[in-house]
């Protein structure tokens, strides 16, 4: 709803500081609603997901100003609808994309450019995923991890985000697949259920044997169908203004990569001292033991020094 720039800040920056670099302008092909960004140290690239153009754009690391992307993944072959979460596997040279609308995990070569078909797709009823918001890849254990805002209940129709959103669904969770899984396959493990505290998970990172994720438990149902033609059946008005109310049950959670089922997190960042109202994005710096969070309610970034979580 503002300029859809990509801003870079020094890790140690604090307060009301301007970005030290900013990528912006029509030439960048950035759109509002960048719900996924990742840095690939292997190629020294910044990759962003652009749902409003069904595309992925890549910039050289350290880019500044009105610069063209070095690569754009876009077109019918890509099967991109609403790309959200992104992750790069520098060991196997792959780019992993979570698509919110199609509820598919799409895997491309890490240097994909143009109208390129995915080399693998994980999606379908057996996966039980619905509304993929974040992905991570663990080349060490050969896993792909996806987090969702919802999951399909057993027997639910093969509906995706559209008109059936929020029907025949259960709370979301953490879905763990073999890295080379392809097609409509059941996850190797699923972390979800009342004891996990996950109603909807937003974004995810992996480091060694730990999964780091943001959990947003404020219910949100768009009032209109996704196509924007008419209010959904039963709609009586706009949704609760979730960005201004916050939710004390939102948190940052850490699980073991070997967890499966209704397992509580082993580490959380949660409570009024955190200052967070609605954590969404997550990034990690294992070397310094830090977790970085974005929060749209507060309109800022939060850095937590938690070496014990790694």
């Amino acid at each position, binding site marked *: 709803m503002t300029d859809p720039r990509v801003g870079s800040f020094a890790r140690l920056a*604090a307060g009301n500081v301007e970005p030290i670099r900013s990528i912006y302008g029509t030439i960048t092909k950035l759109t509002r609603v960048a719900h996924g960004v990742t840095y690939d140290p292997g190629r020294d690239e910044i990759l962003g997901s652009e749902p409003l153009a069904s595309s992925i754009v890549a910039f050289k690391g350290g880019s500044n100003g*009105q610069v063209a992307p070095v690569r754009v993944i876009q077109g019918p072959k890509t099967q991109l609808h609403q790309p959200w979460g992104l992750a790069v596997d520098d060991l196997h040279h792959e780019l992993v994309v979570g698509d919110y609308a199609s509820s598919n995990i799409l895997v491309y070569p890490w240097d994909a450019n143009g109208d390129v078909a995915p080399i693998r797709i994980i999606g379908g009823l057996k996966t039980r995923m619905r509304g993929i918001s974040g992905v991570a890849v663990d080349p060490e254990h050969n896993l792909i991890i996806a987090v969702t805002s919802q999951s399909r209940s057993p027997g639910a129709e093969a509906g995706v985000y559209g008109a059936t959103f929020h029907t025949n669904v259960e709370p979301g969770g953490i879905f763990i697949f073999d890295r080379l899984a392809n097609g409509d396959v059941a996850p190797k493990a699923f972390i979800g259920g009342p004891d996990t505290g996950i109603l909807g998970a937003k974004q995810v990172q992996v480091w060694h044997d730990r999964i780091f994720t943001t959990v947003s438990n404020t219910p949100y149902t768009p009032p209109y169908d996704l196509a924007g033609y008419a209010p959904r059946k039963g709609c009586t008005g706009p949704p609760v203004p979730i960005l201004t109310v916050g939710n004390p049950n939102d948190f940052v959670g850490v699980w073991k990569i070997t967890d499966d089922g209704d397992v*509580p997190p082993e580490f959380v960042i949660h409570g009024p001292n955190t200052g967070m109202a609605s954590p969404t*994005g997550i990034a990690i710096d294992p070397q310094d033991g830090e977790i970085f969070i974005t929060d749209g309610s507060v309109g800022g970034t939060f850095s937590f*020094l938690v070496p014990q979580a790694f």
Partner: protein
Amino acid sequence: MVEKCRQRTKGRPGKGILALGVALLIGLGTSQGRLGTAIANAQSKAHFNFAKVFGSAGGGNLAPCRVISDPYPEFNTIGMDTKNGLVVISDTNMKSLLVYHINEASNSSGATRAIAQIKGPATYLSYATGVALDPARRMMCVTENDVGDDVACFPYGANGDYKASVLAVPHGSYGLAFSQRLHQMALSIEHNEQIIFYRTGATGAELPLRSIRGPHTQMADPHGIYWDDVNHEIGAVNHGNWSQAYWDVDYNGGGHYQPPSITIFADNAKGDVPPLRVIQGRHTQLNWPSGIAVDPVHNEIAVANTAGHSVLIFSRTASGDVKPLRVIRGPHSKIVTPMSVAFDLAHNTLWVTNFGHSAMVFDRTAEGDATPLRFIRNAPAGTRTAGFGNPYTIAYDSKRDELIVPN
């Protein structure tokens, strides 16, 4: 925890950070926090056992080492009622509406005195974007982008956590305009490239009257709109991002980019109709155009050209790849990341809001690196801004030791 942060980050959190933390905690203790707590309690009663979730885990209620955030409002879009002397500007950062008298000024270094700041959970204000005023009903309205999904309206005189009159609208609404002639309200919807129309005064889940949408409209990620009641036209600026795949999971055609544009339609248009005129091309200088206003007296259109750090003035009847009649840009103009424009024909001025802490008032015919006649500020002059719009996601650049945050 702060002590540990200090050791590892080679610096103590500044007073500003500590003050911000206190402010955040105070915010969570207000009615905002109470409503959130009510939701949380309902979830706990349903089937979640958060005591168990949080009880056995390490970590807990930890303070952050560092926070990057702007404690001031950030101006976004402007609405104006010259007859009643009101200027209303949306603010996505504090999630508020700021109301000023049209003759207010801030020629000193301080913030300009606002008549009112509407803010709080009862207002529904969140990612506040398009603003329009309805002098006939004495109402000021704003639409909420992203998960706001609404138009919230307030009577003149509203202040604080005032209960809004709200209408549900499609996801991704941006621009807002009224027609006194047709008694209708129009919104642009970024996500599915449409202008959607409602009865003025619609609330709840009232159905739209009609929409302009489809490939023939040539709209792509429409932002600001204007309604020209004199010439019976409605216009929109477009960033140029297009994807039916976004909202139609059965569509396999992918997305595409097209050059930014201004699309102008008959104001009674409906369906997949071509625009009357399109301004688009290299000569136009359009670069993320976000705001637009019409001057039907002098037959001109002004555009807030966000990434061009400029305001472009076109003939109202221009079409094609045309040069602007005038461009306001340069260091003296103080135009940086402009989000919206508005004509005040009663005072022969042109208003421009920067995304951040200032709005400028220019002579209507200003051109080049013109100096503003006066400023409206929501923070002391020179205050920097982190400039977050909707910081949803984040990455860590391990090579440069930097955080990467898109809006």
